[in-house]
């Protein structure tokens, strides 16, 4: 693979985050895209590749006035954008396109111009999971946790620690939805959603979007912003049905995607200065830390309790505040990528001083898919 030969030269989120009732879903994609193009000093005429999820790339290309020679509509849930970066790197290296726009936009809260959450009755989910009463991610994504908890002796307090520490990061971020300090007692006293998951262990529901522009490393220095190089990428899928995961204490898709990205980048865990792990729910950073190999199996709760992932810790994690405190429109992966890019540019509100390697790790569906991107601000 020639992953080292591409870089992010444009990156931006939507102008607003949170509640954006005046924009439809495609409008959020476009707002983010225009911001990213401005960041890179480009117009739609300069873009020849387009990738998005949650919206059709055909719709978006026409909407923005882009004439692509490369199109990717891979939609595997919230980590789709990690896969788009990986696919874009391959396409650029193969000469299929030179300047690729990847967008995300989602009216998660205001629900302007979006469809509902439903499963066909004849799908495997429709036949073998939906009849038992799950109502979306809070009751599906969360099901594996009790098996993990029993296997490794983890507690509800271990889950709460994730939310509390991420809120500390969010306090440093003016764009975070929730910034007030949070205590373990507050988390464990919040409304029960699906035992043992309480409201403050679940992500926000907001409106927003983000976009990236990727080009070859050779061209990257010709753009106004500091290039952020893509050192390695990984992707995988496991199962659309959470009940059919190999093992509820670990995500196979996380492991496969993570190993691939580390191998492509040629880095070790000690090289990583900054980490983003898609946190739709508080157990995901625990799975991510273990499945990416930063700690051994069953060790993540202690690693977090010892404040290794907190401000001043050796592995700053989810420094934007994460899906639990920053924002989460339904497919959070784009926001994890954006924070990694900001950290590598050196402009993050909670900047990790001297950070040179950042990883953004995403999940799609309910442990269904995964994508991992290794970024660096040092030319490979």
């Amino acid at each position: 693979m020639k992953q080292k030969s591409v870089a992010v030269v444009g990156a931006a989120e939507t102008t607003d985050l949170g509640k954006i009732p005046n924009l439809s879903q495609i409008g959020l994609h476009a707002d983010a895209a225009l911001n990213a193009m401005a960041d890179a000093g480009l117009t739609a005429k300069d873009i020849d590749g387009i990738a998005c999820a949650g919206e059709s790339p055909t719709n978006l290309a026409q909407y923005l006035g882009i004439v692509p020679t490369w199109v990717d509509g891979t939609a595997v849930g919230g980590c789709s954008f990690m896969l788009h970066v990986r696919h874009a790197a391959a396409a650029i290296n193969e000469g299929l396109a030179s300047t690729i726009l990847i967008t995300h936009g989602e009216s998660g809260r205001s629900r302007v111009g979006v469809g509902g959450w439903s499963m066909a009755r004849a799908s495997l989910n429709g036949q073998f999971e939906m009849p038992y009463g799950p109502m979306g991610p809070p009751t599906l994504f969360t099901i594996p946790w009790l098996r993990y908890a029993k296997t490794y002796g983890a507690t509800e307090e271990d889950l709460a620690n994730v939310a509390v520490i991420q809120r500390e990061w969010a306090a440093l971020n003016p764009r975070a939805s929730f910034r007030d300090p949070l205590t373990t007692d507050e988390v464990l006293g919040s409304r029960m959603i699906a035992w043992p998951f309480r409201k403050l262990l679940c992500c926000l529901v907001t409106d927003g979007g983000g976009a990236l522009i990727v080009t070859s490393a050779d061209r990257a220095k010709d753009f106004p912003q500091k290039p952020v190089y893509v050192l390695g990428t990984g992707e995988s899928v496991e199962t659309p049905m959470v009940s059919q995961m190999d093992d509820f204490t670990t995500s196979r898709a996380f492991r496969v995607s993570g190993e691939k990205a580390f191998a492509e980048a040629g880095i070790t865990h000690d090289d990583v200065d900054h980490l983003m792990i898609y946190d739709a729910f508080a157990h995901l950073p625990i799975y991510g830390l273990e499945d990416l190999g930063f700690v051994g199996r069953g060790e993540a709760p202690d690693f977090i309790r010892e404040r290794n992932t907190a401000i001043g810790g050796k592995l700053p994690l989810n420094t934007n505040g994460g899906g639990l405190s920053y924002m989460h429109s339904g497919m959070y992966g784009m926001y994890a990528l954006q924070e990694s890019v900001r950290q590598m540019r050196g402009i993050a509100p909670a900047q990790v001083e001297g950070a040179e390697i950042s990883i953004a790790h995403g999940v799609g569906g309910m442990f269904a898919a995964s994508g991992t991107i290794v970024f660096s601000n040092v030319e490979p």
Partner: protein
Amino acid sequence: MSGPGGATRPIPQPTPETEHFWEGTKAGELRIQRCQDCEGAYFPPRPFCPHCSSRNVAVEVASGRATLYSYVIHHREVPGFESPYAIAVVELEEGPRMMTNIVDCEQTPEALELDMALEVTFEEQDDTITLPFFRPAEGSQSRPAAGGAR
């Protein structure tokens, strides 16, 4: 089972590949499939083995014995369900896992112990669909349902 306002739970729509399973539950049998080459048992239904890709597979009747692998207890109001209720994944004695609800049992963390012994029970939903549920196995230590909550 009908909930507030007569709402019912989502009813599956069988496909040709899953028809045998739903005929089975109607007949009071929990049917799984087993590869005749690698001998692996699997679920959900499909006409080939997910372990070795062989099409040489057969349907067999599972013992109906299982253990509680993991779950959550949903606390929000859901049409067709009486909250709170557990959405569970059980591990069949033959190996495969499936999602289900646990019936004849309090829907509490105290009553729903991981790895507790369960057995299958069936409940007709309409003319076509009978759903498999699981209940604490006979003779196992478990708390009976309070006031018929199920």
